[in-house]
């Protein structure tokens, strides 16, 4: 602690000298610490520091509220020109942006910098569950939608719920007729699954690895386009099993709309360089994220497409106009 403070103090003194890097580097995690946004910020913090891209250490600050809504609005309205400030976003932020939960701003109101990794949905049951693969679960849901209770860590309209609703759709069950219980975060949902309170949990791939080792759960499918590297290689995708369900949760950063071109280009350049390095792959893997690299205009295109896709899904699932 003390050492860090002394370093910070020293860095503050040094920050006066002129370098190309933006001043006062800061990453805003739009949530409480410990979650995915925090992790995203810590990733760029350590990557920038290890690669010596910055002289001053990057601060990580927290601005919770509405999966990024508060941070999105604060950056656009109050801090639009801070070249050193990047804000973490996730697929969940894009979803809420599409649902109009971010207030009056759209995806065109910030400058998208980079997506650096992704997580994918996963369908999980208890180790002693009778369902051996995704087909078993989907057929059981088709046969008796009232008997299978899905649980997950998000409310109706959240990503976790969408995953459940998409599985139910594959079973030919209307989203209104499936049974779904929302828990407070993935941890509680996982506990409820293991306690036998719900039969299936539509969670994320990154969180199952630890539980898989304990032998307490079975992963029926990952919702990624292709099989995942690492420990989850043995798990088939939903697409392989004949169901077109895919759920990608991209993670990355944006900056305010009035950040100078020089600073914006510095960030793009730095990320392009970082994302190509094996050190970054290692840092990303340590944090349980899978490779998913997009920068600049490509990312902006991706976000635009996702917003359109989510808007359509929201209309289908009766969530529009909320």
């Amino acid at each position, binding site marked *: *602690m003390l050492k860090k403070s002394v370093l910070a103090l020293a860095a503050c003194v040094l920050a006066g000298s002129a370098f190309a890097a933006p001043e006062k580097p800061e990453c*805003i995690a739009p949530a*409480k*610490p*410990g*979650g995915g946004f925090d992790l995203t910020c810590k990733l760029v913090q350590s990557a920038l520091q290890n690669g010596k891209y910055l002289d001053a250490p990057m601060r990580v*600050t*927290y*601005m*919770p*509220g*509405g999966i990024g*809504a*508060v941070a999105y*609005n*604060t950056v656009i309205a109050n801090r639009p020109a801070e070249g050193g400030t990047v804000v973490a976003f996730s697929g969940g932020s894009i979803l809420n942006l599409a649902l109009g*939960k*971010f*207030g009056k701003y759209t995806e065109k109101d910030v400058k998208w910098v980079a997506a650096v990794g992704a997580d994918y949905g996963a369908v999980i049951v208890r180790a002693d569950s009778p369902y051996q693969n995704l087909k078993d679960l989907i057929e059981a849901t088709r046969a008796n939608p*009232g008997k299978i*209770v899905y649980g997950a860590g*998000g*409310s*109706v*309209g*959240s990503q976790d*719920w969408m995953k459940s609703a998409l599985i139910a759709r594959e079973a030919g069950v209307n989203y209104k007729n499936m*049974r*779904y*219980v*929302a*828990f*407070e*975060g993935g*941890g*509680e949902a996982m*506990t*409820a699954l293991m*306690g036998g*309170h*719900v039969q299936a949990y539509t969670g994320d791939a990154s969180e199952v690895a630890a539980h898989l080792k304990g032998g307490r759960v079975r992963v029926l499918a990952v919702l990624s386009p292709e099989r995942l590297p690492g420990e989850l290689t043995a798990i088939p995708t939903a697409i392989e099993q004949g169901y077109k369900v895919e759920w990608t949760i991209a993670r990355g950063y944006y900056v305010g709309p009035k950040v100078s071109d020089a600073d914006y280009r510095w960030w793009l350049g730095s990320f392009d360089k970082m994302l190509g390095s094996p050190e970054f792959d290692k840092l990303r893997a340590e944090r349980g994220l899978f490779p998913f690299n997009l920068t600049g205009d490509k990312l902006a295109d991706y976000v635009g497409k996702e917003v359109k896709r989510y808007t359509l899904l929201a209309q289908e699932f009766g969530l529009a106009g*909320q």
Partner: protein
Amino acid sequence: METLSLLMQGFAVAGTPENLMIALVGCFLGTIVGLLPGLGPINGVAILLPIAFAMKLPPESALILLCAVYAGCEYGGRISAILINVPGDAGAVMTTLDGYPMAKKGLAGPALSMSALASFIGALVATIGIVAFAPLLAEWAIAFGPAEYFVLMVLALCCLGGLVGDSLPKALTACLIGLFLSTVGIDSNSGIYRYTFDLLHLQDGIPFIVIVIGLFAVSELMLMLQNAHAAGEPISVTGRLMFNTQEFMLAKWTMLRSALSGFFIGVLPGAGATIASAMCYAAERRMAGKDHQFGQGDIRGVAAPEAANNASANGSLVPMLTLGVPGSGTTAVMIGALTLYNITPGPTLFQDQPVIVWGLIASLFIANVMLLVMNIPLIRVFVKFLSIPNWLLVPGVAAISLVGVYAVHGTTFDLILGTLIGGLGYLLRVMNFPIAPFILGFVLGDMMEQNLRRALSISDGDPSILFASPIAIGLWVAAAAMLIGPRVMKAIDARRVPQEAVAH
């Protein structure tokens, strides 16, 4: 002995130089907060919580800091009680009865050292009690599902009986306001926003820290202005500092008895340090027979309440750690600290976060040794803090509190909201509404509602799920006992000592 090895692991966590340092700072700050009249453990913990968070302390270190502050406050409260006849916090009210007379007789030194020893014994007994009982309680707490959680919240609200104060409608009103405020924000089941008035900052609900700072820091400042009476000059500590053997022999059983009963009173949710110290003082006074000087400076009169209030403060950590149910305002704030770190307090805490739980317990042992050392040889240092002028103290507290809120969320919206809630808190406190039910209602409300709804969705609307498991039934019985118990006790007590009014 699994418990012992876990405790050893805890000492490894608490014994790192960094955490030792944190405990030391916490003890020091806690003693000061405790001795300043007007600021008690809940203010201390409330003000330091966001700062610990802002310093990016890991969760176990943050909890160690808060618990050291909590323990320190219980020690510090007695200093001003003895030297200026103003209790530094509510738990030290009873200490004034004999402490101040002793000081006037020139026995300030022995009064301070004996009460420090009593505090230590109380805390030590209670910490051993935590080690003995908490893992047992946590053992069966693992099987909790939404239904059991819901009944647990009902139990916690029933325990509020102990915090009611004088007027039932006022306590209920305070609790209901807290419950209502907990519904603001996104509903975690249906995903719709409730009572956010289209304000983005309210989407996740009113942050706990904002409520706490508003109620316990901002409104406190306003009350301090209202009660700005010139406290008497502190009596200076002259003569011998230590109690002698005779005094020790007189008080030793008093301390042990009060420590044990204080612990068990503390474990009961709702009954706090104030009640424990009053009950133990009254009991010791009754047991002393005719030959006593209670009220005129009896050494047992400082030993009993101090042992009891420290034991009960530590005892109230048992329901917090095992069940996630706050037993007092201060533990409610600590639960808030855990949620700030995305750690769900509750029955699975022992299993999921052994580092935090056992590190915390071990640090209680360490902190109390530190406090004993600080409070006997170094007592004169602390006496100096009694003379910090309010014109420096109050603005300092105001600025530190609001910086803390800003550090957690980084927006001024929360500062404004906290100030407005502080205004409401002032009105409530002037009108004698108890504040603890407010904060407990706020903490419990969301868990209570969501778990009830979850339980009923799992059972598809069948309410029998709420009575299905032996745990749930046991909790219902306990809840009923908490409602009826205090009344029965009061009736028995009233019959036994009709002539002696039990000090409140």
